[in-house]
C-alpha cells in the first residue's frame, strides 16, 4: 500500500510539472495571441483591452495558478477564437478519438495474437519467418503513410470507402464503422508488429516452463495449453506496451484524424496550434498528458492482477 501511495504522489507531481511546463511553454514561445485574435492591424487601445480581458498582463505563475484552480473544477477556460468553452469542445471530440484508439488496439491484438501463437509454436519455421518479415514491414510503415497508401488503394482505385467524411453512430451504425475502418486499420498495423514480436518471444519463453511440460504430460492438447496456461503469463509485457501505446496514441491520432478529416481531438489540437488558441491547446495537451500518465499508472497496478508474482 505504501508503494501505491508513493506512486500516487509521484503521479500528482508529474501532472503538476507537465501542466505548468506546457503552460509556460505555450506562453513563452513567440507568437502573440492577441495578434491572432484581433489581427495585426488592431489599434493599440483594442489590443490593450484584449490583453486585459485575457489577463495576459498578469505574471505567468499567477495565470497558471488561476488556470489550475479552475481546471481542477473541470473548467479549462474559453477558446479565444470560437468562444466555446474548451472543456465542452474537448468533450464533444474526445469520444471519437478514444473510439479510434480502442478500435485500433483491438484490431492490432486480433491480428497479432494468432500470428504470435502460430510463430511461437514453431519458431524458425516458414510461418515464423514470414510473419517476422511482415512485422518488420509493418514497423517501418507509420500510420500516416499507411493512411495515404490505403486511401490510394481502397478509395481512389477500388472505391470501397469514401476518402473522407464521418458518420455519427447515432445516424447510421454501419456507415459509422465504415468511416472508421481505414483510419483504425492505419493506426493498428504499426502496433501489430510490436505486439506480435513481444508476445511471440514471451510465449517461446513460457513454453519452456515446467508447468507447460506438466500440462502436456497430463494429456492437454496444444490449443488448451496455449489458451489456459501460456497466454496469461505471456501477456504481461503486451499489456504494459498496450498501455503505453494507448497513451501515446491519443496524441498519435492527430495525423490520421487530419488525413481522414475526422472531427476528433487531434484535429482540434492542430487547429489550436495553427491559430495560437492558447487555452484550447493547453486544454488538449492536458487531456493527452493526463490520459497518458494515468494509463501508465493503471498499467503499473495491473501487473499485480495479471502476474501474481509481482503483486505488492
Amino acid at each position, binding site marked *: 500500500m505504501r508503494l501505491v501511495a508513493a506512486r500516487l504522489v509521484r503521479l500528482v507531481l508529474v501532472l503538476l510539472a507537465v501542466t505548468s511546463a506546457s503552460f509556460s511553454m505555450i506562453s513563452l514561445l513567440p507568437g502573440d495571441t492577441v495578434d491572432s485574435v484581433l489581427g495585426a492591424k488592431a489599434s493599440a487601445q483594442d489590443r490593450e483591452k484584449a490583453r486585459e480581458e485575457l489577463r495576459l498582463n498578469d505574471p505567468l505563475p499567477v495565470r497558471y495558478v488561476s488556470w489550475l484552480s479552475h481546471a481542477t473544477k473541470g473548467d479549462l477556460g474559453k477558446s479565444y477564437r470560437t468562444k466555446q468553452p474548451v472543456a465542452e469542445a474537448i468533450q464533444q471530440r474526445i469520444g471519437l478519438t478514444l473510439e479510434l484508439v480502442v478500435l485500433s488496439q483491438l484490431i492490432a491484438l486480433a491480428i497479432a495474437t494468432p500470428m504470435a501463437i502460430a510463430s511461437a509454436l514453431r519458431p524458425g519455421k516458414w510461418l515464423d519467418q514470414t510473419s517476422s518479415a511482415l512485422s*518488420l514491414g509493418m514497423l517501418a510503415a507509420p500510420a*500516416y503513410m499507411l493512411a495515404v497508401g490505403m486511401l490510394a488503394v481502397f478509395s481512389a482505385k477500388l472505391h470501397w470507402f469514401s476518402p473522407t467524411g464521418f458518420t455519427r453512430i447515432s445516424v447510421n451504425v454501419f456507415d459509422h464503422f465504415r468511416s472508421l475502418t481505414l483510419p483504425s486499420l492505419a493506426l493498428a498495423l504499426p502496433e501489430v508488429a510490436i505486439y506480435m514480436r513481444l508476445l511471440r518471444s514471451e510465449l517461446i519463453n513460457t513454453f519452456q516452463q515446467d508447468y507447460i511440460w506438466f500440462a502436456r504430460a497430463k494429456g492437454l492438447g496444444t490449443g488448451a495449453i496455449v489458451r489456459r496456461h501460456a497466454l496469461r503469463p505471456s501477456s504481461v509485457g503486451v499489456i504494459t506496451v498496450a498501455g503505453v501505446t494507448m497513451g501515446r496514441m491519443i496524441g498519435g491520432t492527430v495525423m490520421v484524424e487530419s488525413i481522414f478529416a475526422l472531427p476528433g481531438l487531434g484535429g482540434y489540437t492542430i487547429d489550436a496550434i495553427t491559430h495560437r488558441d492558447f487555452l484550447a491547446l493547453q486544454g488538449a495537451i492536458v487531456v493527452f498528458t493526463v490520459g497518458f500518465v494515468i494509463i501508465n499508472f493503471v498499467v503499473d497496478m495491473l501487473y499485480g492482477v495479471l502476474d501474481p508474482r509481482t503483486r505488492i
Partner: protein
Amino acid sequence: MSLITNGSGAAHLDAPHEDDEGLAKARLPVSNIIAIGWLIALSLVALFADVLPFADPKNTHAGKPLSGPSGHNWLGTDQLGRDLFSRSVYGARVSIVVGIAAVLLSCVVGGCIGLFAGYSRRRADTVIMFFVDVLLAFPALLLAVSIVAFTNSRGPVTVVFAIALIYLGPTVRIVRGLTLNVGKNDFVLAARAIGSKNSRVIRREVLPNVLPSILSLAIVAIAGAMVAEGGLAYLNLSVAPPTPTWGAMMASGVSKLDRSVYPAVVPAGAMFLTVLALTVIGDHLQQRGNREGGAT
C-alpha cells in the same frame, strides 16, 4: 534491460577490438545487404542530384500534370507538372539530413545526461528522471508540432531541434539504464578504487561499453526521426516550400488521389523503403547485441 552488451570485466579489456572482429565475422543476412545498398544508393543519388541528369524538381514543365510513369518522367508528375522522381530524390535530402542531425543531437545531449544520471545515481538521478518522466508524458508529435508552429520558423534548424527533443527523453532513459548496468561491474569499481577521476571512468570504462547499444538504437531512431519529419512536413510544418519534402509531397498528393495516385504513392514508397531499410539494419544489430549479451 535486454540491451546490455557485455557483462564481465574480462570482456571489457578488449571490448572495442572484439566488437570490430565480431562485425567482420558475423555473416550479414541478404536483407541487410539490400538495406545497406538502398541507403547508400539513396544517399549518393541525393548528394549528387545536382550533377546527375535529373529534371529540375521545381520545373513545372517537366511533363503533363498528373501523368503516370513514362520514359520521360520515370515516376510520373504532380499536379503542377513537376517530375516526381526528381522531387523524391531532392526530398530525400531533407529526410536524411534532418533524421541524422536530430538523432545525433539527441544522442549527444541525451547521452551525456543519461551517463551522468546513471553514473552519479542518488539525487541527481532522481531529479533527472523526474524531468524525463515529464518530458515523456507529452505526446511526442504534438510537442514537435507546437514548437515549429509557435516559433513560426520553418528552417531546418528548428525542425531538427523539435525532433531531437522528441528523442531526448527516451535516449536519457535508455542510456541511464545501460550505464547503471555497466556501473555495477567490477572493472568500474576497480577503476574507481585505483583513484581514477569520475570523468575518466566514464570516458574510458563506461562509455565504450554503452556505445554499441546506443549505436543500434540510434539507427532505429533515425528512421523514427525521418517519420516525424514527414509528419511535420505533411502538416506543412517542416522545411518551407519550394524545397521538396516527402511529407509535403504526400499531403499535396492526397488531395489529388482521385485523378492520379502517383503524387501520393511515390513519396510514401520512398519513405517506406528508407525507413524499412533502417529498421532491418537496426533490428539485426539489436538482435546481435542481445545474443552477445546472452553469451557472456
